[in-house]
């Protein structure tokens, strides 16, 4: 049996990397997703079509492949053509996760924005509110309430998806657990890693339940 006292500090180190990927991805993908959602609803086709294409690629190909593509793609691009920047492993992972999750968030946000009745825009416009004021003070607060359940789903999936970072050898929780599995010749470290993921998601679920309740002050 592996020694838990030895195992925990090692896995904790990996978990911190996992949390960093998780936190940074949310930090970038949520605003980006909102922007993409707004662009996808643009009345101009030159804006709408590329955005639709981006979303379909992000949702239609494995995230694993996207991580590899960003890491090696950026490397070869800067190596051979001198343009662009080559990512280190960790930033490459964060970049790949951010643009991937932005696509999913964008679709959730778009659904939320489109669910707001037209009358809200008309009332705001009759009162003389500008488009910006209408979006940020009238529409967005209502969208937040709409999208919390679906976004919670994505966020919880993200916690688990971070394990994909191992494909370019970022030492997050799961890759370290696998190393320990080999070292101890036991699958026990993997289960311990599983507990880390589970507890993290349990806390997130509680957090989202709390937020949903908080937002329930109106129908």
């Amino acid at each position: 049996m592996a020694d838990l006292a030895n195992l925990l500090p090692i896995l904790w180190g990996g978990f911190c990397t996992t949390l960093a990927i998780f936190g940074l991805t949310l930090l970038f993908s949520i605003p980006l997703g909102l922007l993409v959602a707004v662009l996808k609803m643009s009345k101009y086709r030159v804006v709408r079509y590329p955005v639709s294409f981006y979303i379909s690629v992000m949702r239609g190909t494995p995230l694993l492949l996207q991580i590899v593509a960003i890491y090696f793609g950026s490397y070869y691009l800067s190596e051979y053509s001198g343009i662009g920047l080559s990512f280190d492993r960790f930033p490459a992972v964060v970049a790949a996760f951010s643009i991937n999750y932005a696509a999913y968030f964008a679709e959730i946000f778009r659904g939320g924005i489109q669910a707001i009745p037209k009358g809200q825009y008309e009332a705001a416009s009759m009162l003389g509110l500008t488009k910006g004021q209408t979006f940020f003070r009238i529409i967005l607060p209502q969208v937040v309430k709409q999208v919390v359940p679906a976004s919670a789903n994505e966020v919880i999936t993200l916690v688990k998806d971070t394990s994909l970072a191992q494909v370019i050898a970022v030492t997050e929780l799961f890759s370290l657990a696998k190393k320990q599995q080999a070292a101890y010749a036991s699958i026990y470290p993997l289960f311990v890693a599983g507990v880390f993921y589970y507890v993290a998601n349990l806390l997130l679920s509680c957090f989202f339940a709390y937020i949903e309740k908080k937002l329930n002050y109106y129908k």
Partner: protein
Amino acid sequence: MNAVLKVEHLKKSFGENHVLKDISFDLNQGEVLSIIGPSGSGKSTLLRCITQLETMDAGAVCVNGKNMIVGLDKKGNAKYAPPNVLREIRLSTGLVFQNFNLFPHLTVLQNLTIAPIRVLGMDREEARKRGRELLEQMGLASKEKAYPCELSGGQQQRVSIARALAMKPEILFFDEPTSALDPELTGEVLKIIKGLADKKMTMVIVTHEMAFARDVANKVIFMDQGVIVEQGSPDFVFNQSGNERLASFLSRFSQG
């Protein structure tokens, strides 16, 4: 008499569907106009053109001496005045919607203060004070902290009237203000509108409440199929006009 609202030869089509064919009327300061007519006659579209929620194809609208339309564009459609003029016109008009369209995430008082604060730049405290006065006038003094979903339909509609009044419009438009209400709740809303009429608020009211249309208005317009069929004093339109379409429309209501 100074006409605060002047509509001339207004036309509006949705594709092949000519909703408004040639609408002209005017309204003086302090007067109340009721617009009646069967569903689909273009009443609401007319209101939405005047309040700039729809664009008209041709004609002219003049609010408070300001022209919304300044000529024709290359395609021969109505050419709108520059944005700053349209905005001035917009701010002198208020609209009460059939479905209230209150902001559900804001309290009753916040619904009343958001535009005065953000648009008119009114001081926060002053906006609240004024909001409270309006709520009191609407008989809703105790509801300022409530959210719209906690109110009855009649109360919500009264809040939405207060919200429109908070912007001190020159003309207040009502688009079937009681059509979404249970019959027992229409009275409280109509009473408020009647009170505004007594205070000489200039109003245009699209309604299916015939008795109310007759009692509140100085002037009544009967529309059918995109044209004004009859207009005049309430007494003329409801009692003296010999127009057949109007008579058959009104008879449906008196039987109802």
